[in-house]
């Protein structure tokens, strides 16, 4: 049983079969990329795994637990975190507050504890703050701590979202097009950060269009087209796979 | 005996129901053209009735009604021009709150001018004890005036939206404002027109039911909630369904007296609204996909 196991999941929206009978596994400690032309069902797949959608059929198992049908916050508590294709930071909160929310799953203070502000609570607050700063330093954004998140540039916001996702010490991270909208320098930076994250022991599943990013850092690549799995192998094999080439470049009109 | 009573309640329910339907249609016209839910819709009904009573003091009844309707239409246009026109892409929530504020201002102004007293127009024909005997059921002629007038309003609106150029322009505006603008439809004026139209039919409805239901400075809020309930019940934007939903609400309210004290009548409409919002916000006759299509 893989760390994350996806078995025959399908999802349909009205007349559109977004994901059809997809199965694959992600082993612990690897970086796996999901690629495919637009409309292939990649983000739908992410939403299914992270609990925003419920599959019509099939099963998803994470660290041995069935997660299909669970709400996102419960899946997050199991150690699965994610970022979003269109950045979803909390615009009016500061950067460090954004990152501290990421640590929600590793903290406990509830309504009563929050209102009474007991010593145990503000000790936990201090610990969360220190941890958040640590994550931000790891990703190079510690200097933005007290700035309002909405005031940062697009590339900086992407890293904030990444810091937030890491703050809860997830064992698996889903990254939905982390390089979208970034220039070459920022993309290289993100690639380095993702490798650093993997080296820390976090398993990464990443959707990306930027092929250099994908091919350089991934251990395995899953290719989707029109909701179906076309290939699931090492980057080198996938590059040479004729089905994959056809799906991206079209048929050769000889 | 029982059957007579049954029909008595039924007619009462239909009479109240038609005014709810008129308010609901007013909601839909503005919602269809602009996406705004105009909470001040109920105030148009109140203004129509109150102004007609005042004008009746020095002109014959038909003139008073026409005058009241025209003035209320002017108020509708003023509201649009002063508060709505210069907003850029407002959210529905923001608009509801603004229109709630507007309805409060109108209501306080009405209280200021007319006081707390209850008023009513005289019966158009006959008086409060005259009744027509229709196969054993005693129906007030005013009820027939109400049903008839509002029925004509619905028919005329239907003709307007389907067969006149102006009506079709408004429907185009509702479907896709940008496309309509590109086709040369003066969309800003369409918005004003939708407010004017809604105000007018609200005022006319208010005049016609005033003898039966009485008019008071504060009836607008309750009517707005019930009108909104009716509009949601039929599916926001669907005016024909609003008529049916209005009858349903009126009749349910009417018969509710059998099972609960009359004082709770108002709570029924709201309970229906809440249930609809929780269970089926697209309305009884709407469905999720086509609820986005805004037509008459």
């Amino acid at each position: 049983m893989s760390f994350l196991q996806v078995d025959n999941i399908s999802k349909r929206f009205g007349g559109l079969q977004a994901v059809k009978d997809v199965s694959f596994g992600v082993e612990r400690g690897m970086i796996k990329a999901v690629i495919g032309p637009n409309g292939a069902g990649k983000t739908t797949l992410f939403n299914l795994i992270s609990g925003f959608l419920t599959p019509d059929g099939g099963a998803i198992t994470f660290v041995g637990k069935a997660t299909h049908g669970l709400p996102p916050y419960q899946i997050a508590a199991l150690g699965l975190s994610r970022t979003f294709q269109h950045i979803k930071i909390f615009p009016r909160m500061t950067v460090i507050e954004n990152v501290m929310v990421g640590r929600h799953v590793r903290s406990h203070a509830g309504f009563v504890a929050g209102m009474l502000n007991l010593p145990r609570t503000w000790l936990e607050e201090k610990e969360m703050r220190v941890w958040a700063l640590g994550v931000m330093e790891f990703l190079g954004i510690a200097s933005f701590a007290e700035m309002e998140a909405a005031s940062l540039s697009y590339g900086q916001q992407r890293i904030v979202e990444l810091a937030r996702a890491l703050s809860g010490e997830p064992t698996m991270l889903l990254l939905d097009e982390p390089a979208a909208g970034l220039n070459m320098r920022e993309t290289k930076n993100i690639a380095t950060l993702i490798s650093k994250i993997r080296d820390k022991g976090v398993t990464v599943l990443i959707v990306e269009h930027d092929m250099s990013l994908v091919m350089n850092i991934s251990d395995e690549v899953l290719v989707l087209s029109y909701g179906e799995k076309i290939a699931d192998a090492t980057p080198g094999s996938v590059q040479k796979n004729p089905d994959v080439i056809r799906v991206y470049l079209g048929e050769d009109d000889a | 005996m029982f059957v007579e009573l049954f029909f008595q309640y039924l007619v009462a329910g239909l009479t109240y129901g038609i005014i709810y339907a008129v308010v609901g249609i007013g909601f839909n016209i503005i919602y269809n053209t602009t996406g705004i839910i105009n909470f001040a819709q109920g105030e148009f009904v109140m203004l129509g009735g109150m102004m007609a009573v005042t004008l009746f003091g020095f002109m014959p009844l038909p003139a008073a009604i026409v005058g009241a309707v025209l003035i209320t239409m002017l108020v509708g246009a003023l509201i649009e021009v002063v508060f709505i026109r210069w907003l850029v892409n407002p959210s529905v929530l923001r608009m509801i709150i603004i229109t709630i504020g507007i309805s409060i201002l109108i209501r306080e102004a009405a209280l200021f001018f007319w006081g707390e007293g209850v008023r009513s127009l005289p019966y158009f024909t006959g008086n409060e004890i005259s009744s027509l005997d229709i196969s054993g059921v005693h129906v007030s002629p005013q009820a027939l005036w109400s049903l008839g007038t509002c029925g004509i309003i619905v028919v005329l609106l239907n003709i307007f939206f389907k067969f006149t150029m102006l009506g079709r322009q408004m429907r185009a505006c509702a479907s896709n404002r940008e496309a309509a603008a590109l086709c040369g439809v003066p969309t800003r004026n369409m918005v004003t027109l939708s407010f004017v139209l809604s105000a007018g039919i609200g005022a006319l409805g208010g005049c016609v039911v005033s003898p039966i239901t009485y008019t008071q400075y504060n009836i607008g809020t309750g009517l707005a909630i019930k009108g909104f309930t009716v509009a949601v019940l039929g599916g926001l934007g669907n005016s024909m369904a609003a008529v049916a939903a209005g009858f349903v609400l009126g009749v349910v309210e009417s018969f509710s007296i059998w099972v609960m004290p009359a004082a709770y009548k108002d709570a029924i409409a709201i309970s229906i609204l809440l249930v609809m919002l929780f269970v089926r916000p697209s309305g009884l006759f709407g469905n999720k996909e086509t609820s986005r299509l805004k037509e008459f």
Partner: protein
Amino acid sequence: MRLSRVSSIFIFVVTVIAAQILTMATGTVFLLTQLTMTAYYSLIVIGLCLLMGFAGQISLGHAGFFAIGGYTSAFLTTFDLMPHREKAFVALLAKLHMIHARPDLYGGVVLTVHPVVACLVAVVLTCVVAYAIGIPVLKLKGHYLAMATLGFGTIIYSIVLGTQCLGAADGISSVPPFQIVPGLLVSGIPEARIQNYYIAWGLVAVSMVLLVNLISSRVGRALRSIHGDEDAANAMGVNTARYKLNAFVLSAVLAAVAGIFVTHFNGGIGPSEASIVKSVRYVAIVAIGGMANLWGSLMMSSVLNFLSLRGYFGALDDAVFGAILIIVMLFSPEGILSFNILQVLKELVDKGRRSKEAH
């Protein structure tokens, strides 16, 4: 200038004490009555601020919770059980010391529920209703949520207006004073004016401390994250439905407590306390206070409610708050829940400065 939590509370307490001393010095002790009521109305406002400004959920029906608290307490403490004193249930209540015999206004003796018990029952009832209503209502968003809360408030209004045993249009009067503990009596009698002033503002102070703590805590962050982006909050492990519900219930309880205390202070309650215009008033005050600004809401509530209670707005009382709401909404580009008065003022100043430079 960012004040720490402690210094803000300190300034607040000092202001409250100073105001009381000022009334003594200027011979305007009668103002304490309205100042006391202002404090209670501010409880509703700060609770609503938590819900709307921080959790991002609009409520146009909060006057309903005020009414549930006030009416429940009023009813239980005025309903005479004397004619029923033979019944087993009543005897049981007597044994548990939940009811007591007391003199009424006309010299007779009535058997009513003890105010402390009535207060607890009212709070529990509010919690139950808030949970029951909150679960379906908070699944709605935007204008549907607004209309649903509006509907809830109107149902409560219809109930209190139409129910005979709740006094119908006249409301409930002759509500007895409420002795919280020996020495603290919530009552409108002139002798207890100063005591009641401090009871009321003390309640506000405690609530502010709790709320300010909550905002700065993990829960406060979670609530603000729900307001910022509900899906992202969910993905970060925040149980958004439960947090929204708890914020809703907490704000409802604050409103109910305000209702209970005002009712005993005034000796009565009427259906107008549950009306839409009251709910709109509270939303308008939170909005003009800056939305996600607890101290701003408190300040605005203190000023506006006091002026209203003193009659400064005259017949235009409700209209003023309606107008405030419209104006706030017209100038709020992203809608009511993102309104930030400091931001709006800053933009106006910037615009003014830019047009000056252009000339």
